[in-house]
């Protein structure tokens, strides 16, 4: 079973702080991590490999330093990693990103499943996964919380797709693309031997020229959307402390919330 996992290196948003004076984002010293949702994707891919054999290839589009993120996935058990990096990709929005990733996937040869995290924590768009499947014209199952069955003979998979009210059971022929939510598994930690292997592993690098893509559709050129303004949201107003014994507190709070709740 050939599995491709798409990951993204993101700033650890939990470490991002706002400079109270300039009201801007303090990014210096903020560590880069593998997008947490992508860790579930990597774990699921490794589990599928452990069950069905085959190969896990992890790909990412990003700057040269995103190699770190790829190595981390090798330390967990991924077999190969590909860095898709080129200045021509700068300024890509989700359209251009999914176009580029789909181009890279085509160069990798046959695959059975593509797995993505449901969204990245920096952009939170959840658009790239479905975008890739649209570019590749393969079926998709988004928000997968459980893979119920994979049949490699008949080439299909059945999965539980999370919805607002519960879940749906969806069957798809292979190859297909799935995006996964946290509930699907608990990612393993790396092993020491995995870390050593990751250190030595060769990361394949591909750029715009290595893919059969229209240069006019890459990077900013291929991106229909443009960011025109970035600003910090107004901080919440300072709250009010309610004191007293439980009874008094409850009375006060009920009074304060009445208008919102009734």
């Amino acid at each position, binding site marked *: 079973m050939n599995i491709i996992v798409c990951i993204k290196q993101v700033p650890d948003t939990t470490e991002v702080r706002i400079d109270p004076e300039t009201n801007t984002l303090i990014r210096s010293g903020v560590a880069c991590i593998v997008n947490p949702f992508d860790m579930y994707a990597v774990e699921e891919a490794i589990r599928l490999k452990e069950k069905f054999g085959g190969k896990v290839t992890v790909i990412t589009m990003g700057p040269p330093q995103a190699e770190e993120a790829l190595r981390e996935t090798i330390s967990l058990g991924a077999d190969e990693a590909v860095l898709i990096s080129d200045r021509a990709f700068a300024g890509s929005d989700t359209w251009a990103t999914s176009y580029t990733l789909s181009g890279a996937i085509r160069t990798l040869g046959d695959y059975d499943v593509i797995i993505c995290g449901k969204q990245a924590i920096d952009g939170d768009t959840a658009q790239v996964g479905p975008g890739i499947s649209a570019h590749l014209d393969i079926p998709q199952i988004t928000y997968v919380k459980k893979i119920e069955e994979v049949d490699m003979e008949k080439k299909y998979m059945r999965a539980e797709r999370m919805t607002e009210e519960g879940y749906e059971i969806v069957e798809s022929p292979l190859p297909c693309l799935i995006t996964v939510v946290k509930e699907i598994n608990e990612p*393993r*930690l*790396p*092993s*020491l*031997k995995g*870390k*050593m292997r990751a*250190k030595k592993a060769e990361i394949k690098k591909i750029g715009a020229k290595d893919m059969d893509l229209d240069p006019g559709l890459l990077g900013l050129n291929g991106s229909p959307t443009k960011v025109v303004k970035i600003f910090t949201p107004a901080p919440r107003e300072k709250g009010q402390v309610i004191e007293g014994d439980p009874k008094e507190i409850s009375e006060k709070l009920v009074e304060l919330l009445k208008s919102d709740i009734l």
Partner: protein
Amino acid sequence: MDYLLTEEQIMIRDLARQIAKEKIKPVAAKYDAEGIFPWDIVKILSESDLFGIYIEEKYGGTGGGSMELVLATEELSKACGGISLALAATALGTYPIILFGTEEQKMKYLPDLAKGKKLAAFALTEAGAGSDAGAVATTATKKGDHYILNGTKQWITNGGEAEVYTVVASVDRTKGARGAACFIVEKGTPGFEFGKKEDKMGIRASATRELVFTDCKIPKENLLGKEGAGFIVAMKTFDQSRPGVASQALGIAQGALDLTVEYVKERKQFGKTISSFQGVQFMLADMATQIEAARALIYATARMLDSGAKKISKDSAIAKLFASDMAMKVTTDCVQLFGGYGYMRDYPIEKYMRDAKITQIYEGTNQIQRSVIASNLIKEKSK
């Protein structure tokens, strides 16, 4: 301070740190309260290859030594000094095999221990033989191809949970310390049973039990080293393991200080954070200094051991003594800085103080360490 660790050592430290932070820290309080053995964490440690960091590659380890073990124990102990013992006590039980095992014994036992498939324990202490290791009353009587073990070992860390035990017993009680021998005993051997699990003050996530041998028949191939070498096996094992206990103490102290620094930065009194008071600052500075001194001493000792140095008893005793006394002092001061909150079980700090205490007691009380240091000192000077 930069200790010029190798790339592999940094990997081990970072990996242990990640496991401590993500997996151990969230459950440390639960295991402390319930006093159950952390098998789920053991599984994680085993999958991460950390059980093999001091074992040669040909036996399934990653080929490190004392320094690697010290780094991992320190990091794990920052989160929980009890859970880290699953690894450290296994190392203690494994060292006799590494140091004195034949090739067959090593091939038989080390691969499973290196993978963490099995845990180990070292059994020396008895009711009447604590610091006085020569007074071992458990006997091993040779009968043909076998030894028959009889007696009771007390307060054995990993007891009941481990699969492989290295047990010191007397083959000739008339010879005292020179009549001891060390044996490998597997869990499940007929005549080998466990007593009740001890209810301890600290390191409550570790299992401490009695081992009871009643006409327990073990094959003579399980003898480690020679008859009469049991005391030497024990002493050499302790020489190797003392930096491990020291690093456990170091980790406990560092973990407590980390929490304390966070706390004093938040806690306000008289309209200021208490970290702004010089009295508090001086305590923090003293603690950090003591911790760093212990770390430097432990790392130096571990590296000396790994270099193959022979005369190590005094230095490894110094490291254990200094680090464990330091840990007790630092954790006590940390509780002090938490004030009333520090005394409450709702806050994590008092656990560090309870956990620290044992490091002054086990694997040779600090009084014994002083004796070892002093006798070596006097011996050196009288040459």
